[in-house]
């Protein structure tokens, strides 16, 4: 995934483009993350000011939702489904395999910055479990060999 470097002026533009929306906090944070890959601390007061909220309120929203990142992710984000349907189809073993292969635990990024490994709770691909999403690409009927291929591709 290619993200823009953090740039306050660009962030201002993104925020200004959304102030007309009802209840825009999440929209702004999502748009910022889409542009920069994460929501830096400097963005919080900007959102707060645009919406006439306290900085604490914006910080509260940012930290409540698992999707928001406060640090840049790796070049690829691999999300593995950890929910029941995937557990039933061998998901736990795959999760352990991914951690071992990448040398990181869930929520962390590999030392070379290639892959961020994140847990997910259901992509709605339960009939072709176990499943994963790499960047925005969905993968079903995952097994160790398929997972290795994905990781190799991501680490190239």
């Amino acid at each position: 995934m290619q993200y823009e470097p953090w740039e306050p002026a660009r962030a201002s533009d993104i925020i200004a483009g959304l102030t007309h929306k009802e209840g825009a906090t999440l929209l702004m944070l999502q748009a910022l993350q889409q542009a920069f890959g994460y929501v830096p601390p400097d963005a919080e007061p900007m959102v707060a000011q645009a919406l006439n909220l306290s900085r604490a309120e914006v910080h509260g929203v940012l930290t409540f939702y698992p999707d928001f990142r406060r640090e840049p992710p790796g070049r690829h984000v691999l999300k593995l489904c950890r929910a029941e349907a995937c557990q039933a189809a061998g998901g736990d073993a795959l999760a352990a395999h991914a951690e071992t292969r990448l040398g990181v635990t869930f929520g962390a990024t590999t030392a070379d910055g290639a892959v961020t490994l994140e847990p997910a709770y259901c992509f709605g691909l339960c009939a072709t479990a176990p499943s994963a999403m790499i960047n925005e690409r969905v993968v079903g009927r995952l097994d160790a060999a398929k997972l290795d291929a994905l990781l190799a591709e991501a680490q190239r």
Partner: protein
Amino acid sequence: MSLRIFIPRDSGALAVGADEVAAALVDQAHARELPVDLVRPGSRGLYWLEPMLEVDTPEGRVAYGPVTPADVPSLLDAIVAGGPHSLRQGLTEEIPWLKRQTRLTFARCGIVDPRSIDDYRAHGGYRGLERALKMSSDAIIDDVVKSGLRGRGGAGFPTGTKWRTVAQAGRGQKYICCNADEGDSGTFADRMLMEGDPFMIIEGMTIAGIAVGATRGYIYIRSEYPHAVEAMNAAIEAARRTGYLGEHICHSTDSFDIEVRVGAGAYICGEETSMLESLEGKRGTVRAKPPLPAHKGLFGRPTVINNVLTFSAVPYILDGGAQAYADCGMGKSRGTKPIQLGGNIKHGGLFEVAFGITLGELVDEIGGGTLSGRPVRAVQVGGPLGAYFPRALFDTPFDYEAFAARSGMVGHGGVVVFDDTVDMAKQARFAMEFCAHESCGKCTPCRIGSTRGAETVDKIIARDRPAANIAVLEDLCNTMKFGSLCALGGLAPIPVLSALTHFPEDFGLAPRRLQAAE
């Protein structure tokens, strides 16, 4: 004459290679100078056959699956020659798995092009809205009441009653909210509809707007569904362009518009009041009820909140089908229920059927047992907050009351199958851990009870004073059940207690011969 070929763009099909198959098809057709009209519909829901390719023939669509890119050349040979092929499934409509279904909500899914409003209309779309535009608000709501439609999100509240409350809640701004935060593991019906028949959801929401006097609608979709977000946005744009959304819908005096909002990974936002908080740009914490959202919902205004499947049932009902809808089903569970078969299952997919089919028929006959080939040991019905049922309860019919009578729930209709390698104490622990992870933190029983619950299950697994700790666990479950504000804390005990009741041997207790709980 060009060949009309269908390959789903549903994410369940994409996850197993539908795009690669489509690319191979385009390549091969090009190389052979064979004119092909490739359509990318949603999925029929026969996921064990995905990627499924269908060819239009004078007799109807013929299905092939599961197709890999390597199969495409021989497949094209067979199609052109009208010959046999090992992947040929015959006429799609005649595949027994599909033929056994009663498709009302999913009638068009996998058939129409989800990007084409013309295709939707050609298949009966927007007839419900056109009729509703000529009716009074009361008459529309009467139709919904008469159909017996109950909310398909899980709670099963009568839809017409909810709409009437909002319609009578004074004047001024009102909202329609479609809850598309389908967070339960094992459920994917909403996703399939959004990707396969998005105009039906739009039509259902629009009818609701007209019925209660709301001009704005939101559809809140979870971020785990990027393809559904894209499909809904494209359909909303097309509906606006053709006058089905916006000012003066179809040249009437009614106006209605819809905006997609995307969640941010919090399971709790599937709970309706948390969803409202999230839509308002806040932390997704649960609101105490009353006031009901029907009186004070989004931005404090009267709001109809329904699930994707509920709104999707509305166009059929308004198109003169209220009685036909009510005629399906059993007891107080009217109409059909789209059941989702997933997990360790041979024939996984979406199975829409009238209420009343038994759990055993679903798992053994339709699902074909486990994919691993091992015996089925447990089935979780109704998502992460649903009960684990053993084989002894496989005679339970799919019906809200019948499941509740056996301490379970139908919920959103997810059925997740586990084979005999499952460790039910571990599953009980996961239920508590999941609740702890996803709790919004507002009320103590859920926030602290779930964390203590996971610790207590750990002690039981470690055989640390099991009898005393099982008593603690049961006590915690009761506190959560009766003391939590919303269904997350209130229902999380269900999977835990069902595991303990039906699979005591996994907790170090003596196995129990289960009597079906009558």
